[in-house]
C-alpha cells in the first residue's frame, strides 16, 4: 500500500515537473496558431480555430525571412567548417600530442572566457578595413572562432575515450592513419561528438551580440527577434510565437539529421 502511494506521488511530482517545463513551450506553439483575438482574451482558450496566418506573416515579412535564411547559412557554414577543422585536430591532439594537449585545450577554452564585446569592437575596425563589415562571410569567420574552439574542446575527451587498442588492432590489419580515423576513431567517438556538435550549433544559433555588431544589415534571426520584441505595446503576439517556433525548429531538425547520420555511421562500418 505504502509502495503504491509513493509510486503515485512520484508520478504526480514528475507529471507536475513536466507540465512546468513544457507548459510555456506548448503555450507558445499553440499561440503560434492562434489569431490575436484568441490570444488576448481574458479567458485562455485551449480550443480555437487554428490559423497559419502568423507563419504567413512572418514568411512574407522580408526582414524575418532573410533573417532565417542568413541564420541558416551562417550557422551551418560555421558549424560545418568548425567540425571539419576541429574534429581531426582534436583527434591529433588526443593521440599524438598528449603532452601539449592540456595546454592547447586550455588555450582553446580560454578563448571562450573573453567577453564577446572584447572581440566585437576590434573586429569592427578590422572588418571595416578589410571591407567585410556587415557581410555574412565576416560573421562566419568570427563564428569559426567559437565553433572550432568549442568542437576541439569537447572532442578531445571524446577521442581520448576511444581505446587506443582499437586503433592499434586496426593498424595491425593494415589500416593507415586516415583509414583508422574514418573507420574506427570517428564512428566509435561519434555519440560524444554528436553532443559536441549540437552544443556548438546551439551556441552560435543563439548568438546575438556579435551578429548585432558585425552584421546589423545582414541580420540573423536572433537580431530580428530582438528587434521584434522592442516593438512596444502593440505586440503582435501570434507573430512572435510563430517566430519563436521558427527559431527553435532548425536546431531540432539539425539534431534529427545528425542523429540519423550517427546511426548509419555506427551501423554500416566498412562494406
Amino acid at each position, binding site marked *: 500500500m505504502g509502495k503504491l502511494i509513493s509510486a503515485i506521488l512520484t508520478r504526480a511530482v514528475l507529471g507536475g515537473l513536466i507540465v512546468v517545463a513544457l507548459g510555456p513551450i506548448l503555450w507558445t506553439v499553440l499561440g503560434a496558431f492562434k489569431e490575436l483575438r484568441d490570444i488576448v482574451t481574458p479567458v485562455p482558450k485551449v480550443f480555437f480555430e487554428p490559423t497559419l496566418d502568423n507563419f504567413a506573416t512572418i514568411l512574407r515579412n522580408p526582414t524575418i525571412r532573410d533573417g532565417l535564411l542568413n541564420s541558416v547559412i551562417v550557422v551551418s557554414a560555421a558549424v560545418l567548417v568548425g567540425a571539419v577543422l576541429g574534429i581531426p585536430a582534436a583527434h591529433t591532439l588526443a593521440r599524438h600530442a598528449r603532452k601539449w594537449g592540456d595546454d592547447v585545450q586550455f588555450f582553446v577554452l580560454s578563448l571562450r572566457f573573453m567577453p564577446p564585446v572584447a572581440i566585437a569592437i576590434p573586429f569592427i575596425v578590422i572588418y571595416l578595413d578589410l571591407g567585410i563589415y556587415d557581410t555574412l562571410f565576416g560573421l562566419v569567420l568570427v563564428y569559426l572562432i567559437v565553433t572550432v574552439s568549442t568542437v576541439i574542446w569537447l572532442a578531445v575527451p571524446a577521442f581520448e575515450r576511444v*581505446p587506443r*587498442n*582499437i586503433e*592499434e*588492432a*586496426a*593498424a*595491425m*590489419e*593494415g*589500416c*593507415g592513419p586516415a583509414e583508422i580515423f574514418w573507420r*574506427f576513431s570517428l*564512428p*566509435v567517438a561519434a555519440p560524444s561528438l554528436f553532443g559536441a556538435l549540437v552544443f556548438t550549433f546551439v551556441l552560435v544559433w543563439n548568438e546575438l551580440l556579435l551578429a548585432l555588431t558585425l552584421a546589423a544589415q545582414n541580420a540573423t534571426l536572433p537580431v530580428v527577434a530582438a528587434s521584434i520584441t522592442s516593438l512596444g505595446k502593440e505586440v503582435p503576439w501570434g507573430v512572435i510565437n510563430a517566430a519563436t517556433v521558427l527559431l527553435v525548429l532548425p536546431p531540432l531538425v539539425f539534431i534529427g539529421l545528425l542523429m540519423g547520420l550517427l546511426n548509419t*555511421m*555506427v*551501423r554500416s*562500418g*566498412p*562494406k
Partner: protein
Amino acid sequence: MANISCNDIVKSYGAHPVIEGLDLDIPDHEFVVFLGPSGCGKSTMLRMIAGLEEVTGGRIAIGGTDVTDLPPGERGVAMVFQSYALYPHMSVADNITFGLRRQGASRSEIAPRLKQVAELLGLEKFLDRKPKNLSGGQQQRVAMARAMIKTPQVFLFDEPLSNLDAKLREKLRTEIRKIHMQLKTTTIFVTHDQLEAMTIADRIVLMRDGRIEQMGTPDEIYERPATRFVADFIGTPAMNFVSADIAAGDRLIAHGEGMTLELSRSAFPDLAPGQRVELGLRPARMELCTPDTSNAITGRVVLVENMGAEGQVITEVAGREVSFVTQSFRDLSPGDPVSFTISPDHIHVFDSSTGHSLRRN
C-alpha cells in the same frame, strides 16, 4: 609460418632505457612465452615485434625479412590484446572478417573461412551480435578468431587471459594450446603468470628489467634455474632460500641455518670449502621423513595450508620459515615437531653475491 629474430634490440622512452640490447631467436612453429614480473618490458618487446612501437636500436626479422621499418599491417603478424580491442560498432562477424574484407577478398572466399574459425572457437551462435553483448571469454574468442582468420605468419598474445576468471582461463589456455598444435603458427604469448607459462609454452623467455634472465623449456627453467631470481619466480609454493657455508671433507656438505645438507658433487664440482652460498630448496621436492634420515631438516610446524590433494606445511627451523609440500599434511598440526628431507639431486646452489647458479651439469 616464420621464424622471428631480434637482434640487439634497444628501447628507451626519453633517457630511460626499458630494453637494453636484447637478442632473441624464435624458430618456426614454436610457442614461446614471455614471462616476467610487471614492468620488465614484456609488452614493450611484443609491441615492437608487432610494429606498434618503434625500436630505438636493433633489427627485427620475421621469416627472414627485415621488418624493423615496416608498418604493423605489412609484417604478417596478428595480435590479441588483453583488453580484446574489438570494434564496438561492428557485429562479431564483421569484426572477424574486417581484415579480409579490407584486403578485398570476395564474399565466397570469406564465408567458408568465417565458418571455419567460428566453429574452431565456438562462436557460430554469436556472429550477429555486437561485442558489448558478449561475455569476457566470448569477446576474447572473437579477438582470437579475428587474429586467426587471416592465417598470419606469427600470433602475438599480450596477456589475453588475465581479465578472465580462473576456470575460464584454464579452459581457454588449453584451447589456445590445442589450436597451436593444429595450426603450428609461430606464437609469442606474454604473461606474468608462471603457471600459465609452464603449462602452455614450448619455451619460456624469462625477462627481468629489460633483459633475458633465462630462456629454455619449462622443464629447464623449473629444474635448472640459471639464477636465484628465476628459481624464486618459478614454482608454487615458492622456493626456500637458505644461506650456507661449504664444509671441508670428502663428501660435499653445506652447513646452513639449522640444517646440514649433502650436495651432489657431480652437479657442483667447483664448490670449495669455506665458500658462502645460497641453497634453494623446492617445497615440492621435499618429503616427510624420520629425524635420522640423511639430509633431514627438523623443525616445528607453524601452519598447514590445505591445497586439496596436497598441503603446504610451513615450519620454523632455527628461527626462520621453511615450507614443504606433502600429501600426508593431515597428520600434522601447528606446534608438532617435524622432519623432512630433500635428495642432493634436487638442491640448487647459487652464488650468494651474484645469484648465479653454481650447477655445472
